[in-house]
């Protein structure tokens, strides 16, 4: 307690004196503080930018399935027919299960469904597409999980699904063949003899893995199940987590929910598969760690230079105040008192710079956010590290000047002019 009040007094003294020292050596102080600020700024700025980009890339990747996983009866990749028995004996995922799942799932920001088959001889007036087209049953979220957007017209709505409407979306391949010179929206095509009204077309995705990604027709899942269902029909459920952080939680919820819906007894393994794209995130973080390292090395250099600046300003400050040190010693300051005073001063000095750097860094990161039109993320943890590092620099580079001050001879200091 004794020591504490002494320390507190000392710190208040040091704070006053830091302000004085900064005032007296304005230019030098500003240059030094600038150095510290640049160091901290580069870390905080880059970290803010990376966090911001990360969050935007992740939200971008959502479309590519980063935060999305798919629940289905069959695994996505199977090697040979080994173990097929196990999957075949599972119940199909049917529409009531999906509906219940969608109704009860709390975490996901999007739940959608899809099932596909193929259709030949799709017609529009006198034109027929002979080769088979992928026929997809889905709902309002399905095109998102197919990684495309509506180019014209409108998407499938929940209304379309509930009312089992005969409406369809066309991929660009289908548009090319059936409507080379016409606007397809509002026209009626025939799929296996049934009439479907074209409500929208999707953006061209081009080829992937050697095949076209635009050769499909999407219709409401309810309609699909009414007309194209067979005993093998089982639904895929796409679930999108709100964020990468909540991905695992969302998945846990989905698994628990579906187990309950499908009445999987406790202790038994899931009777469905979960397909995810978690590796994508890992790949991205590998890329950002490179940038982080770069920013870190810039900061280290800037902070080192700033540290030397602090040392210089403190040495000058000691020389300027030799007389004062003598007076303080004559009236009872110990070496420790003087050491603490100058050390605290150095820490205050670097913290001033640090705080400015943090503020500028966060502002800079936010500018990046504005440019990329993504919500800014403030890296509080790095701001904290930045300020801690400033204290360390203050101590590291302030210790020598402080030590010099504390070791001055009181008589000689008093005589110093």
């Amino acid at each position, binding site marked *: 307690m*004794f020591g504490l*009040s*002494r320390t507190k*007094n*000392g710190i208040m*003294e040091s704070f006053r004196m830091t302000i*004085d020292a900064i005032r007296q050596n304005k230019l030098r102080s500003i240059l030094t503080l600038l150095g510290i600020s640049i160091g901290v700024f580069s870390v905080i700025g880059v970290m803010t930018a990376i966090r911001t980009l990360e969050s935007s890339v992740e939200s971008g990747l959502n479309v590519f399935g980063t935060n999305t996983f798919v629940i289905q009866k069959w695994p996505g990749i199977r090697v040979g027919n080994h173990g097929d028995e196990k999957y075949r004996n599972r119940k199909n995922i049917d529409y009531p299960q999906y509906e219940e799942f969608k109704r009860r799932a709390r975490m996901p920001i999007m739940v959608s469904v899809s099932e596909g088959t193929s259709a030949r001889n799709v017609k529009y007036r006198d034109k027929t597409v002979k080769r088979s087209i992928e026929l997809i049953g889905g709902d309002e979220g399905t095109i998102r999980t197919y990684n495309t957007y509506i180019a014209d017209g409108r998407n499938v709505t929940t209304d379309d699904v509930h009312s089992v409407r005969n409406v369809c979306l066309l991929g660009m391949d289908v548009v090319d063949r059936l409507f080379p010179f016409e606007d397809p929206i509002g026209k009626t095509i025939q799929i296996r003899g049934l009439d479907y009204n074209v409500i929208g077309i999707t953006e061209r995705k081009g080829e992937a893995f050697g095949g076209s990604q635009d050769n499909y027709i999407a219709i409401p899942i309810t309609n699909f199940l009414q007309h194209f269902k067979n005993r093998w029909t089982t639904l895929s459920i796409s679930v999108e987590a709100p964020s990468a952080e909540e991905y695992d939680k969302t998945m846990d919820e989905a698994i628990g929910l579906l187990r309950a819906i499908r009445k999987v007894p406790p202790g038994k393994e899931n009777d469905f598969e979960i397909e995810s794209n978690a590796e994508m995130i890992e790949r991205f973080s590998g890329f950002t760690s490179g940038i982080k390292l770069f920013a870190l090395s810039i900061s280290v250099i800037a902070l080192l230079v700033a540290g030397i600046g602090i040392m210089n300003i403190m040495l000058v400050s000691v020389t300027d105040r030799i*007389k*004062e040190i*003598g*007076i*303080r*010693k*004559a*009236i*009872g*300051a*110990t*070496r*420790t*008192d003087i050491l603490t005073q100058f050390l605290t001063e150095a820490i205050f000095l670097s913290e001033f710079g640090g705080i400015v750097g943090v503020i500028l860094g966060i502002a800079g990161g936010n500018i990046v956010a504005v440019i990329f039109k993504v919500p800014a993320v403030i890296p509080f943890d790095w701001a904290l590290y930045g300020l801690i590092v400033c204290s360390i620099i203050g101590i590291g580079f302030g210790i020598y000047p402080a030590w010099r001050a504390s070791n001055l001879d*009181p*008589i000689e200091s*008093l005589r110093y002019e």
Partner: protein
Amino acid sequence: MSSLISLQNIKRHYEVGDEIVRALDGVDLTINHNEYISIMGPSGSGKSTLMNMIGCLDTPSSGKYEFEGELVHDMDDNQLASIRNRKIGFVFQTFNLLPKATALHNVEVPLIYSNIPKNQRIDKASKSLTEVGLHDRMYHRPNELSGGQRQRVAIARALVNDPSIILADEPTGNLDSKSGAEIMNILDSLYSRGNTIILVTHEEYIANHAHRIINIFDGKIKDDKIVKKK
């Protein structure tokens, strides 16, 4: 009554190149409580060195120094700092105030180093300033005060920790005669209230305020006589 200060064969030598400067060359001196002493002597005779020695700012090259029964010559830096803080009040020729601090804060600083809480510090410091007649100058900085007022702030600072002894090295040396007389009045009244005072001066009439006058020459005490009864 035991003595306040006892110096036995105190030497303080400086090596300057090949030469040895004997600033103090075997000083024996005993000072009791409530004495008022003037130290006189030509320039370079060792007066300031002796004051610094007594004030625990300096340590002897050899000899024995006892302060209130404690052996000063054996003390480390921290103990010396603590003695200076609690037992000794310095008044310098050049005032030696902190230039950017107010009078009040200047007087407060010794109390900071003896861990006195803020409110008590303010109390004590303002009381001390009132004693030297500066109650209306507490928030002035040294450059806003006259020389005599600055020296009074210095005296207030010397008094604030209730020291056992007040050491004043040419306290009137930088002052006009009127301000000098004011300072001497304050020292006289401190003495009459029971304080112990040692004063270095070149002026006969200043020295005559004391009841005991010590003459120094070449680092040795040349004579030491009581000039007044208490």
